[in-house]
């Protein structure tokens, strides 16, 4: 056995055939948070379908409120978990920091220290960081598992909360943060509320639609840039076609906005759809290389089976949707009737219909994406077929459903999906997909796609934050968005940036992935881990402030036992329990999934005794979907 190696002359770097170019969608799919995002969307759609108020502003404010405090902690805990450690004292710490700040600023007569909030808040922050530092240092010095060390810290904190509360205020409820000087200011920071009913903006819907359309177009253009091969020199011949398309699209949109009748809506939708298709074709003609090889139509069993099965499932879903609607035995009183003590009949219908159709559509999409590997023609044929199925489904829903949101909103969404699929398929047939990275279009595509997502999100937020004069009388109760949501988004954004873009982020992944390897190259592993513990305690402090200023009174038990929810949220969001892999944005989405599941159940009016059963199923599904998507995406690339 000899391994003779040709000396001196090493062959020049040859491209590695095993590294295929990954398209934008594939790149997106291997992100750790993407599975969670898809899970979150499905859960949202699910509860939107089975309940009345869940999808409205009031429902959104409700579950976001729960997601916010959970999410701030989940994001920090995810960082720590990526760094390979756990903190079981995280939950208790949220209550402890709240109690601490109240004790610091409460009147001396009431057992407090009587400090100003201007001192008490920074002081409590420093003390909180001290707890994190202590946890981290102890874990590092003793080299014991952080599970054990922080379990000890949990008991110490839990005990200290009770002990100090009883010692200073003689009860387990510590209250009156308003006795601290500067309360009005700090209350604004930590406990402002945006009351939607007080913010009227009558052209809200116009702004909303405009932002959504502009954002959608930007996303579409961005994806085109990222997917197709740019021409050496642009072909201006495409521009007039793109212009015609854009004009038709706009005319269709405005006409659609101004009409009410079904017939007119139908006509203008077609005009708008044709506009999008022509516009996209024109843009592609202008910028991209034509497809030199469309290939012959190939439809082997590997394609026909999922396509057929998908179609079958969609038909089955529609069938159940219709049959349960008309089955007399199940019909007597549809709003309160429950089946198996669990669900309303409406709920079962929605589950069967939504579940089967979604699985069916996913199968069809898989078939379409596989078909592209055979030839462009095959890809286009299967995609168009899928688009047709989606369109038919949309019309069945519109004609048969008696729920207004199914008739109107779901119908529009499905039509849009069908339209985009058709557009994508047509462009894919006539233009050449890229097989290699290309810097300029990559950058432009990314910028466009991100800008599109931002604009569309701003549009949605706009609709959520403002009401109109015409809507106001129909509203029941107040919709209040709490400032904690803003803190949540800020923390998630900051943590995501830190992880992706800073040294500290890199080191976090490194110490969690392989502590010895990172030490080897000079990463200060102990310091990094200690700082991660301090980040968790800082987050706990933030949540403590949010609670203290919101509730004015904090119970000693506040937050105890919540630490596992944070860990679950992080895991649902794609963070590896073993460390070294994960994402902060994913943890934020994981928190949203949990909050939506927690709140969706009472919104749906389901019996709360079954709450954990649902929660368990949802979480398992979310984690499994997450895993599956990541694996498939990694294998595909």
């Amino acid at each position, binding site marked *: 056995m000899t391994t003779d190696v040709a000396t001196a002359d090493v062959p020049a770097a040859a491209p590695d055939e095993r*590294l295929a170019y990954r398209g934008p969608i594939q790149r997106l799919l291997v992100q750790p948070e993407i599975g969670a995002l898809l899970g979150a969307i499905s859960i949202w759609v699910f509860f939107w379908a089975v309940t009345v108020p869940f999808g409205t502003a009031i429902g959104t404010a409700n579950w976001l409120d729960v997601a916010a405090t959970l999410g701030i902690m989940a994001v920090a805990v995810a960082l720590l978990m990526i760094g390979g450690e756990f903190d079981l004292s995280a939950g208790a710490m949220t209550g402890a920091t709240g109690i601490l700040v109240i004790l610091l600023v409460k009147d001396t007569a009431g057992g407090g220290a009587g400090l100003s909030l201007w001192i008490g808040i920074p002081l409590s922050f420093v003390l909180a960081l001290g707890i994190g530092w202590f946890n981290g240092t102890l874990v590092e010095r003793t080299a014991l598992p952080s599970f054990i060390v922080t379990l000890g810290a949990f008991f110490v904190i839990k005990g200290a909360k009770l002990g100090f509360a009883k010692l200073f205020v003689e009860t387990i409820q510590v209250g009156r943060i308003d006795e601290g000087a500067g309360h009005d200011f700090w209350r604004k920071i930590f406990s402002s509320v945006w009351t939607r009913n007080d913010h009227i903006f009558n052209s809200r819907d116009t702004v909303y639609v405009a932002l959504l359309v502009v954002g959608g177009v930007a996303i579409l253009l961005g994806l085109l840039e990222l997917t197709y091969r740019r021409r050496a020199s642009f072909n201006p011949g495409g521009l007039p076609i793109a212009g015609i398309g854009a004009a038709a699209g706009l005319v269709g949109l405005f006409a659609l906005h101004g009409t009410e009748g079904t017939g007119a809506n139908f006509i203008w939708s077609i005009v708008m759809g044709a506009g999008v298709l022509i516009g996209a074709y024109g843009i592609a003609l202008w910028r991209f290389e034509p497809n030199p090889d469309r290939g012959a139509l190939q439809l082997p069993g590997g394609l026909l089976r999922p396509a057929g099965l998908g179609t079958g499932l969609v038909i089955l879903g529609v069938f159940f949707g219709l049959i349960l609607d008309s089955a007399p035995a199940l019909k007597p009183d549809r709003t309160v009737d429950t089946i198996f003590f669990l669900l309303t009949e409406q709920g079962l219908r929605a589950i069967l219909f939504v579940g089967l159709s979604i699985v069916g559509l996913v199968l069809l999409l898989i078939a379409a994406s596989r078909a592209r590997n055979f030839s462009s023609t095959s890809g286009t044929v299967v995609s168009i077929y899928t688009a047709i199925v989606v369109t038919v489904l949309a019309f069945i829903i519109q004609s048969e459903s008696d729920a207004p949101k199914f008739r109107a909103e779901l119908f529009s969404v499905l039509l849009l999906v069908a339209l985009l699929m058709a557009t994508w398929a047509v462009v894919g047939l006539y233009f050449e997909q890229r097989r290699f990275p290309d810097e300029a279009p990559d950058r432009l595509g990314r910028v466009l796609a991100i800008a599109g997502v931002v604009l569309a999100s701003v549009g949605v937020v706009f609709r959520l934050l403002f009401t109109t004069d015409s809507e106001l009388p129909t509203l029941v109760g107040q919709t209040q968005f709490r400032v904690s949501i803003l803190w949540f988004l800020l923390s998630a954004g900051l943590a995501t940036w830190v992880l992706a873009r800073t040294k500290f982020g890199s080191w976090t992944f490194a110490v969690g*992935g392989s502590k010895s390897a*990172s030490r080897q190259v000079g990463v200060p592993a102990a310091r990094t881990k200690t700082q991660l513990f301090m980040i968790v305690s800082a987050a706990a402090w933030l949540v403590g402030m949010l609670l203290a200023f919101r509730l004015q009174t904090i119970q000693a038990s506040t937050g105890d036992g919540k630490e596992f929810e944070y860990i679950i949220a992080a895991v649902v969001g794609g963070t590896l329990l073993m460390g070294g892999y994960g994402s902060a944005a994913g943890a934020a989405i994981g928190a949203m999934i949990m909050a939506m599941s927690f709140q969706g159940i009472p919104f749906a009016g389901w019996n709360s005794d079954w709450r954990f059963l649902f929660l368990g199923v949802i979480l398992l599904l979310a984690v499994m979907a997450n895993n599956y998507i990541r694996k498939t995406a990694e294998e595909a690339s």
Partner: protein
Amino acid sequence: MSEPALLELEDISKNYGNIIALTGVTTLVNAGEVTCVLGDNGAGKSTFIKIIAGAHQQSEGILKVDGEEVMFDSPRDALARGIATVYQDLAVVPLMSVWRNFFLGSEPTKGFGPIRWIDRKKASRIAKEEMGKMGIDIRDTEQAVGTLSGGERQSVAIARAAYFGAKVLLLDEPTSALGVKQSGVVLKYILEARNRGLGVIFITHNPNHAWPVGDRFLILNRGVSMGNFAKDEITRDELIMMMAGGAELEELTRELEQAAAGDEALSHLAEEFAEEVGELEERAEHDE
């Protein structure tokens, strides 16, 4: 030779209390040369590595870097002198991307004041270039290192050490856990590093890996240096013979024969073994 060797060891010994781990080791590492350190398990290779990497200090003997006598206090000290160690299992973080691994601990940053972030583009570009110099085309530096083959993983660590100014690369058994083909890949990278003017210390127990790439061979057996040869002073078969310890092999043959008495299958094996050892000895003598 006018220039002093990058690294020179003169009569290095190491005792742990009354245990003698290493005695009288002498060798040198020149720029653009590969010095192979061969030895079976327990031969003193790891003590040797620890002394050069700065984890332990020699008890006796002289260590010279660029002709200057030194005594390393810590691994950091050795690194500062341009001696980079690549451990077999601890080279990289598998779940992290190629560029993050490449720059781990020394990330290039940009920004203003205390707010600084990694210059991703630069890091990615340099990682790609440097890997290219090693003969590996990494298209996507975002790829996780864990998805690379074992040989390529070692090469990421080698390229990193070279980029960050190492003059001497100390490679601890880089091929021991790899298959035949992957070992070949790593050997190729060793040559590549050599061609770039680095001095390489290649530690292995496999003379078949050492022979094709080595310019100089240091053979260790039970803590004792069996010799330090330039490539033209020794043949491949002698190398194999010495590494295994000729006298010991004969001893082993005898023992095997005794144990096999009565057992047909084993005695057959023992015969074959004795034959092979005899052949090897003959060839070594013939070469001389």
